[in-house]
């Protein structure tokens, strides 16, 4: 009887420990920000290369800085940004963008905004009409 009692207590305490103790080892890999600005930019003749430096292509994004420190961008290199709505541009459409560069220091938009490459200068009207959209952005890193 005594043995059963002790074993019962041990089992119960183990269950309690693993039920209520902090056992969550999930990494904080997804960071969700609601109500963020999503804007579009085009390549003008003065810029020689796109964000990232390679040939321009859909799906590349640059990020801005935390506060006023231009050496401290808001997310790590390689982050994938997923938009809550599909983005349709003249050069492609989709919901995922890869951060491989930083942009100039511009404090104007929401803290975790996304500025999407929209093609060459002649897509300016399309970029303007896309304007500034509020979306939920999820940063994966």
């Amino acid at each position, binding site marked *: 009887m005594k043995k059963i009692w002790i074993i019962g207590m041990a089992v119960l*305490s183990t269950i309690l420990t693993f039920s209520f103790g902090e056992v969550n080892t999930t990494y904080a890999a997804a960071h969700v920000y609601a109500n963020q600005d999503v804007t579009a930019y085009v390549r003008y003749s003065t810029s020689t290369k796109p964000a990232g430096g390679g040939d321009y292509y859909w799906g590349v994004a640059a990020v801005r800085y935390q506060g006023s420190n231009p050496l401290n961008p808001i997310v790590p290199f390689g982050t994938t940004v997923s938009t809550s709505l599909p983005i349709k541009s003249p050069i*492609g459409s989709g919901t995922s963008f890869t951060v491989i560069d930083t942009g100039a*220091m511009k404090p104007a938009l929401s803290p975790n905004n996304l500025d999407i490459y929209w093609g060459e200068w002649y897509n300016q009207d399309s970029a303007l009409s896309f304007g500034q959209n509020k979306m939920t952005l999820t940063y994966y890193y």
Partner: protein
Amino acid sequence: MTNKSRFFLSIFILVGFCVFGYLSNSVSKETFSSITTELTLRQAVDLAKEEVYKWNPNAQLSNIVSVDNPEEKNKTDGIDGKRRYWNLQFVAQIEKKSMGLTIHDGQIVNKWYGEDDSGRGFDIPSIFDSSDALKKTIALYNIKPGKGWAGGYHFQLAKQKEKLVMTVFGRDSKNNFSRVDFDILTGEITSALHKVPYGGGFYSGNSNAPLFNDEQTTLIGSVMSPNFVSDKSLFLWGIRNESNSPFIEMSKDGGLSWININIQNLNNIVNVQFSDNYKQDRTVFITTNDRILKSTNLGNIWEIIYVSKQEIISSFWDSNKFAILTNNNNVLVSSDEENWVSFDTPEGGSNILINSNGSLILKTIDSIYARNADVWTNIKVPFKNPYGEPKHISDKLMINSYNTIGLQDDFTGEWNITRTLYQIENVWLVQNSEFSQDPTIYAYSKDGRLFRIQKGGGSFQVKLSNKGTIAQIINASNNLFFLMNPILEWENWVKG
């Protein structure tokens, strides 16, 4: 054994097992989190494939890129072509769907799903890995690992102009962000580029010769004495690129010479402001992320007048009233620099200022508030999506969106609206030397043109001869001063 003894023994055993269980669990977590597994690009793709093919057997890879490890910013990662963190994108081209995965330490820690109609999927080639690409890049370009953002070496594989391109990211000998692209099918280098800074500095008018320029620094802000015409005093602040540390310089001769202000433990500078009565009191305030400093003797000695436990993100001083905004939705106000009154703010405040009525003005992600009679009231801005940092000069509050500038009079509440045909990057409200005149608005377009907005809404383009992007415009005696950030241009990187 009595029932009482049995009860206490039970409690003792229960507590004992709980403590043992908790400690075991902590140790196992410690061990778990200290395990680091680095993978090459190829190994990361192999790890992800099984999971992706369960989602769609016809899925194709469209992008894989290594990710900074945010916990170890200063460590040299990727030295052997391997990284701990990877992001991958796969597409099902017929269904126009996508699947993304994040790998940390050899485990898939996140999956997400979306749409994709870019046609960028490709079959995974079995040759040439990130370790091969890095060896070749070091041999040919002596590429260095980066520090801070994009730390160490990074790797990406994506389709560019119908070619499968593997890229190695690092730094050149001058610490410029650099990249070398390989055609993954042949192993040949298709492109080598580095991001070179041009221009930047602090300029008077259209002069090509900067009053201050240092390639190793990035300028963030400047401020002039209210009596600049007579005392020629001004401050500049920014970041030293190599050390990522803040600096502040003062000039007492209009920018011809500069004195470094040496302040111990100087945190990132949020703002520098002269007292309105600087001519008499010689008082200047520096707000950093964690404190406010004050000098009453031309910047020779600085005393700490406030230390914040929360990060300070914005500050404003006007006619002996100080307001600071912290990152926990709180604003602190003081009229004597000793006694501070705290108010909660609406969620997500980014800027604080004080208008001519003495009211606090708060900018959040998508709204502007004024605090009157202890209540935050939403200011109705007569255009959509205001996003610009609010500015205030001479009884006027200025807000902008991507194509509209609004100027509100503090006393009448009336708005003056100007719409532009270009996308606005930034706007400044510049005080004229004649204080009876309204301040002048300058708008900077996304494509790098500067416009002076006329009364009635017309825009006149201002010629700029100095190179860079404008970070700030200030005016002294009808002479404009420009704080410019360098333009960073990707250029061909020659071996050597």
